């Protein structure tokens, strides 16, 4: 692994990635780069491959062709000629470098909020019990849940669960945070508390790749918007350009029109 962490290489580099589920061609050659400290949001119609792309980045979903590298290191497959799939141990190590927050939270139901965060810190990062607890408590404080440390996920609201989910991911100090529609399973009144946490992380320079249906959030939080439809990136640019009224991309324009009609934007 030749890690070239020079400031010029993008933190995440996706090249010509293709992926099929059976006969469905979900990703049809995706090229995407995310720079250090950048926040990129992927928007687009459902079924367009957004979530699949995100899941390929930490190899929860193996891709068929192309390459994905984080900090210059190939994810999933070995960087050499053989392109052999990495061992599970290697994959685990790679995944520890990316944090992921899920649509349905996926908190471990048998562990308290605190334990959900310390599990990775002790088992993967090898921290001692006390150190892990301090760190976890710090992040629980950051997401405003210090008093819920010893609650089980079933005792928390959806918004609280998702904030624990975020704390679990960032406590690992990942190089990049992947957010997969993290507010779409939440009641509208709980969305704000979760997005506030994400905005504060963005302000601190956390690199993020998000898939979101919150157009307003995408506009405010991201430096760049990627519009995906039918397995390809169909438009890409800064929010002002993407959401501008004289957008030339037909597909994007009709998506946004339908979207704002549905959400009274």
């Amino acid at each position, binding site marked *: 692994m030749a890690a070239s962490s020079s400031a010029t290489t993008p933190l995440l580099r996706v090249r010509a990635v293709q992926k099929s589920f059976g006969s469905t061609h979900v990703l049809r050659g995706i090229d995407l780069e995310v720079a250090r400290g950048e926040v990129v949001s992927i928007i687009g119609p459902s079924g367009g491959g957004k979530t699949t792309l995100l899941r390929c980045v930490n190899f929860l979903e193996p891709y068929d062709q192309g390459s994905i590298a984080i900090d210059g290191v190939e994810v999933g497959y070995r960087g050499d000629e053989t392109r052999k799939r990495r061992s599970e*141990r290697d994959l685990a190590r790679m995944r520890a470098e990316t944090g992921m927050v899920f649509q349905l939270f996926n908190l471990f*139901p048998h562990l308290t909020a605190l334990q959900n965060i310390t599990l990775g810190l002790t088992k*993967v990062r090898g921290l001692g019990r006390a150190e892990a607890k301090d760190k976890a408590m710090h992040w629980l404080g950051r997401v405003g849940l210090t008093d819920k440390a010893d609650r089980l996920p079933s005792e928390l609201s959806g918004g609280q669960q998702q904030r624990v989910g975020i704390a679990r991911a960032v406590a*690992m100090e990942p190089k990049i945070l992947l957010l997969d529609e993290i507010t779409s399973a939440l009641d509208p009144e709980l969305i704000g508390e979760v997005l506030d946490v994400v905005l504060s992380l963005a302000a601190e320079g956390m690199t993020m790749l998000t898939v979101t249906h919150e157009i307003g959030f995408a506009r405010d939080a991201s430096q760049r918007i990627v519009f995906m439809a039918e397995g390809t990136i169909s438009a890409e640019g800064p929010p002002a350009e993407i959401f501008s009224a004289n957008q030339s991309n037909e597909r994007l324009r009709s998506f946004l029109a339908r979207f704002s009609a549905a959400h009274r934007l």
Partner: protein
Amino acid sequence: MGYVLNFTLIWRHFDKLWSGLILSLELAVLSIGIGCIIGLALAILYVSGGRILRSLIAAYVEVIRNVPLILLVYLVFYGIPTVFDFAYSNTTSFVVTLSAYAGAYLVEVFRAGLDAVPRGLIDAGKAIGLTPFQRLVHVRLPTMLRIALPALSNTFVSLFKDTSVASVIAVPELTYGAQWINFNTFRIMEVYLVVTGLYLVTGYAILIGLRALERRYAIGR
């Protein structure tokens, strides 16, 4: 009906029933313990192993589940010692049988539980960088146990009742005690009423205890 119940003789021989009940419980606890080890080990091998291993485990489960327990008890107690040159007591022989029997049922319970662990939890384990073994120990097994609890409780109680089959090879457990009193005092109605009561109280006590455990730990799917 002109039959008058008279429990005097039952109380006189109650020690036979009491020690029988204790032995029944011991047989159940021991066999369930060994059965759990077999079941858990095979369930893990099943979900992570190759095709041949899976077929072997499936064969074990299918054979045990499709043959009457009483026949297995005879087979192990009378059959096996004639070929392999060793002898074991009827009690040991029964524990061996019921453990193997319990193992087959528990493989299914544990395997179904492992299958029911939501994919998202395994993804979350992967996402924070846990290795497959760490995912098994810290995510899949603890979640599986909680999902499987209700089915486990039912299996445990039904295995406790199955200890009654030990009476056919003269293991002096509760049903054997009942038969002894049946044949020696002829207070037949009385003894079976008392024994029914003992099985019911014990069985439901076990069930209530396990249900309390479920309320504490079980998680909805």
